[in-house]
């Protein structure tokens, strides 16, 4: 059954699978697939979807950072995306990388963004059309963004430390074992270990999955309010910082807080635990 999207603070930021199937040929939108599985787009994707790879397309290949505004303009132009195009993101892993790509688009000021509720798995499970045909569009002319909005939606280690010291909301979205410091990697990713386990002092544990239903759709606005505002101490009007290991699971939570609950001043600390857990001089806390 389709979710009633009007319950969310920004219902325009979500689309349902049924809606998308009826709008596959809508020229004002561009469907963008972003995945963890580097080849899954090639095995079949939503007709008309372009593939934007979080690593090869969005990240700088030399510096741990995102691409330049010039490269972002080129990425959009080659995929037929203009500043007026509404990009609808979806992907595997419950939309982790779709939310990450959406967040990265927002870094460059592209505000016309939406998430496909339930992502790739829901689309596929519902037997909706898939194709292997690689989508191509006439080249667009995306003007180079004048700035990156890092200050507004991205937190760096110093800012995470300041957030910790000030006692403002800091949300750790990793698994409970990672938060407690029992493991130094995410379950199923033992190759991504760090030197130290634990969490940033003062951070509350709210695993990303808490916000999702079993079919990868988002939980209701009431449930999300209870999870984040009633129980995790997130306060409307107060700066909030979210983090995970490399910034993708926290992008999911950033999307929930920003668009579904409508909170201002939510920033994603994308350096996350792979930076903090290895960083000289960074304090940590262990245990629940």
């Amino acid at each position: 059954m389709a979710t009633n999207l009007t319950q969310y603070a920004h219902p325009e930021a979500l689309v349902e699978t049924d809606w998308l199937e009826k709008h596959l040929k809508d020229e004002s939108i561009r469907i963008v697939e972003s995945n963890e599985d580097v080849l899954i787009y090639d095995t079949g994707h939503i007709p008309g979807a372009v593939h934007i790879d979080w690593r090869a397309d969005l990240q700088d290949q030399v510096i741990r950072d995102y691409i330049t505004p010039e490269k972002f303009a080129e990425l959009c132009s080659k995929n037929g995306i203009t500043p007026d195009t509404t990009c609808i993101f979806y992907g595997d892993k419950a939309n982790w990388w779709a939310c990450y790509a959406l967040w990265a688009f927002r870094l460059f000021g592209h505000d016309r963004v939406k998430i496909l509720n339930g992502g790739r798995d829901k689309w596929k499970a519902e037997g909706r059309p898939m194709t292997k045909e690689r989508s191509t569009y006439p080249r667009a002319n995306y003007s180079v963004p004048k700035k990156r909005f890092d200050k507004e939606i991205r937190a760096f280690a110093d800012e995470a430390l300041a957030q910790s010291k000030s006692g403002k909301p800091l949300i750790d979205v990793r698994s409970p074992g990672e938060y407690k410091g029992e493991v130094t990697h995410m379950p199923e990713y033992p190759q991504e270990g760090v030197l130290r386990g634990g969490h940033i002092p003062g951070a509350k544990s709210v695993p990303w999955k808490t916000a999702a239903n079993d079919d990868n759709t988002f939980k209701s606005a009431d449930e999300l309010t209870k999870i984040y505002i009633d129980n995790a101490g997130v306060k409307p009007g107060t700066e909030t910082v979210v983090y995970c290991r490399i910034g993708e699971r926290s992008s999911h939570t950033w999307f929930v807080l920003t668009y579904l609950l409508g909170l201002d001043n939510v920033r994603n600390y994308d350096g996350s635990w792979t930076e903090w857990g290895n960083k000289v001089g960074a304090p940590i806390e262990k245990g629940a």
Partner: protein
Amino acid sequence: MYPQKLNKIINLFETLPEEERRETIVSYSENAKKQEPRKDEQFDLVDVRKDEECMDTVGVYLHVDENGEAHIRMTLGPEVQTLTRAMTAILCKGLEGCTPQEILDLPSDFVTRIVGTELVRIRSQTIYYVLTRIKGICKVYLDRQRMAEVA
């Protein structure tokens, strides 16, 4: 250095431009299902488990025939990544008929020659997982054989 069948696959991949390499990997991944055990097949060892390294359950089935040649079948859970699926089909085909000892002695440096360096990165490192599992079952087989000989 490598078994003949595997060497042919490696040589094929090394001649392919990047885009065709990806297409061929996807094509192999779609054949992973053909590596599942056939009805009535008997195995000397079966190892089905969900490990930390992999997204889903992976089963390895080993039969060693009267000539000492290994025949491997595999089952993969639905969450297993595309590259891991491809490596399953490649290894089942490439190692068909090798002895367990030949499999155990196989260096793993051929993996990047097949996959290319572009796809080996964070979140895609399970490409080595299937080879590790196949080697693992061969090692158990050989250890048991040696123990039986001693006894």
